[in-house]
């Protein structure tokens, strides 16, 4: 459901008055733009929330079509608040057993950065701003997402990574990281990816020559082969968790490129 500027501008005016506590009759362009962004973000959250709901139906679509911009914004704002609470709970859960394995970017982003996000996140006037640079790279990027949406997704990825790494002995994780680079602590690398590739290489070595294996497969065949290996690993050790399998599988195309480039 698209709303015209004529429908949105009164909302910007209303929000501007709240922003200034009715103590100013004007705001800068930047602030007005930020507030417009806030309104559009909440409206979009409401639209996404409708699409994702289990009771998705034609009645719901019609209901959404007849919503005023203000109602859509208010409903979206409630969803933003809900998501912020869920993200905060997830962050608390991650923090209980989090291990960064010495990597500074991992530690600073999750341990230092995340609490600051929840302290300063402004769901009312700037919900689209996720404040953090999220320097630690996840396997799946969060480009295209912003605000609490980006943070919640990011935390879900971190939770999956921590789940994966938690079942691997600490020393083995460190060994894998040191094999990758002896100064891994200072690099902006994905710990999970490095460890996963190390494990997959180890399994491939046990079955025979990795170079011969790579040479005998096309990229598609190699991808299927590696996906099966990941599936077996997740089924055996992680109770077949589908979201973990999907997340780890996303790293395999880049892994294939790495294998091919090392071979050449």
């Amino acid at each position: 459901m698209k709303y015209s500027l004529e429908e949105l501008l009164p909302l910007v005016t209303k929000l501007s008055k709240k922003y200034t506590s009715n103590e100013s009759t004007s705001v800068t362009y930047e602030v007005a733009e930020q507030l417009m962004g806030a309104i559009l973000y909440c409206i979009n959250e409401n639209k996404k929330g409708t699409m994702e709901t289990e009771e998705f139906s034609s009645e719901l679509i019609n209901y959404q079509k007849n919503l005023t911009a203000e109602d859509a914004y208010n409903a979206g704002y409630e969803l933003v608040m809900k998501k912020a609470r869920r993200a905060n709970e997830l962050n608390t859960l991650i923090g209980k057993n989090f291990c960064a394995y010495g990597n500074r970017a991992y530690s600073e982003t999750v341990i230092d950065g995340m609490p600051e996000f929840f302290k300063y996140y402004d769901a009312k006037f700037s919900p689209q701003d996720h404040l953090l640079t999220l320097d630690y790279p996840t396997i799946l990027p969060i480009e295209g997402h912003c605000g609490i949406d980006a943070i919640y997704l990011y935390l879900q990825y971190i939770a999956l990574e921590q789940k994966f790494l938690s079942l691997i002995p600490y020393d083995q994780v460190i060994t894998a990281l040191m094999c990758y680079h002896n100064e891994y602590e200072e690099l902006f690398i994905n710990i999970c990816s490095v460890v996963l590739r190390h494990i997959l290489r180890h399994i491939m070595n046990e079955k025979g020559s990795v170079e011969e294996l790579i040479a005998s497969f096309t990229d598609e065949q190699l991808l299927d082969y590696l996906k099966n290996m990941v599936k077996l690993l997740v089924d055996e050790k992680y109770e077949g968790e589908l979201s973990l399998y999907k997340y780890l599988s996303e790293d395999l195309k880049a892994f294939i490129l790495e294998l091919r480039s090392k071979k050449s």
Partner: protein
Amino acid sequence: MKSKDLYLVNLRYIILLLLIKMRYIWRCGMSDKIFEMMLLEQQKVELQCVLASNEKTKQFGVALTEEEAQMLITCRRDVLKNERRVEFGEGILPKLIDAFCDSQYVEKENYADTLAALQEVFYLYKNESMDELTDDELISFMREQFDGVCYGSIEYLGETCLERFIRAVRAGYEDYKVNDNADEYNQFSEEKHWDHKLYLESLWDLLS
């Protein structure tokens, strides 16, 4: 860190900065259209409010004709555009009229021009204060100094009092919130002014 890794880290940050700059340039174009729309809507409301203020200002011997009111609103539009601000509601003009209409330095000959100049100075220093001051706080300070050390000169008001006071506010000065602007400017003044008692003493010496 190996030089290759350092290069990749730096490249990532350079790309991120470029993307942020491109996004900013696109957004500036979008913003101007949206805010011009807001201005147009608001102008209709403001003309009525400005003309309605004549009811109060008549008693002080000043009033705006419809042409003058329209001129002020046009000036307001230009100043808002220059200062990259957007107004909502009835705007600042009615508040400025209310605050300055009974000033001894405002006469019917210069009423519209004075309001236009005050409006310009108001928006400039609202930006300069980074919105740390509310409308009422800024107008209150302006009126205090306009009638005081500025002797009705808006140029002097802008170049001295406001410039120094706003600088202090940006640096963290907050006493104006409790002092209610009484003699607020004295501590920031860089000019020597006549003390009232000293003036009388000097006058007496001259006459005796």
